[in-house]
């Protein structure tokens, strides 16, 4: 109880995520998440996962991809907590990104965004 005061954000995330205070992966608010196509054959199933992980799997499980921010909004969890939970699920092979991340140069990306926005403007 003594000693330096802990950062309450970290304490909260730590408690919620069963001992993790930092995500193991560098996930962004817009990182897309889907359930893994071939989850590992082990006795860890969504039913036996901690509650938050189970809820993330329930949301992303069968329906399609969502971003970290969308998962946070639908499950009413802080994005920082979702990042930790999703990192764990990815490490365990239960969750994945929608496709092997192809790297597209930023300039092409901006061009793609521009085309899409121009299509909206007509």
């Amino acid at each position, binding site marked *: 109880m003594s000693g330096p005061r802990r950062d309450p954000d970290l304490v909260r995330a730590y408690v919620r995520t069963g001992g993790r205070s930092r995500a193991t992966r560098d996930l962004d*608010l817009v990182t897309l998440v889907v359930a893994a196509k071939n989850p590992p054959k082990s006795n860890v199933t969504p039913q036996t996962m901690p509650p938050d992980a189970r809820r993330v799997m329930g949301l992303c499980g069968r329906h399609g991809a969502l971003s970290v*921010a969308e998962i946070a909004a639908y499950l009413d969890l802080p994005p920082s907590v979702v990042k930790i939970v999703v990192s764990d699920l990815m490490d365990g092979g239960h969750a994945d990104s929608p496709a092997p991340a192809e790297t597209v140069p930023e300039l092409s990306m901006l061009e793609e965004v521009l085309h899409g926005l121009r299509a909206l403007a007509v």
Partner: protein
Amino acid sequence: MGSALSRSEQVAYVAETVTRSVKLLVAGNFGVGKTTFVGSVSEIKPLRTEETITEASVGVDDLAGLDGKTQTTVAMDFGRITVSASLALYLFGTPGQRRFLPMWDDLAKGALGALVLVDTRRLDHADEVLAVLEERGVPFAVAVNEFDGAARYPLEEIREALDLDPATPLTSVDARDRATCVAALITLVEFLFHRLESRP
């Protein structure tokens, strides 16, 4: 704890073909029209998340022994536009104040750029937002949200008042009007494109 699936009928998943995502920020001070703007252009009902941050409240809580820090909840709302078969664009409404910096770092990292909304009745409030973006190295364009009853000024006067770089795009929008919001986003992304293209 409720079932995660209880609201799944309303969950708007990204299209199956979408494999990549990018983000833009819609930044600005309180009440400047960020939420309205995001709602005008988003293809999904805008969503909201909340993060608890430890904000540095300079000098206020020192006597209480709180090391000058307080817990605040910062809300950000965001929307989505599927801009191509494989790419989703997310727009994050972002409060611009410096005291929300812990959240800014997360938002700014990897963002393509920002559209800063300003209100001519409180132009001075934009300074802080612009300074934070400059410090983070987030490229931006500025859009004047023209509120009813607010005096209209020539954009050149506003540019001068905000001390904007001559290259920074400055447009005006009605945050309730989708067409003007899309036009402002196009101006921003054209700027980002040419900026990157002309970089040595």
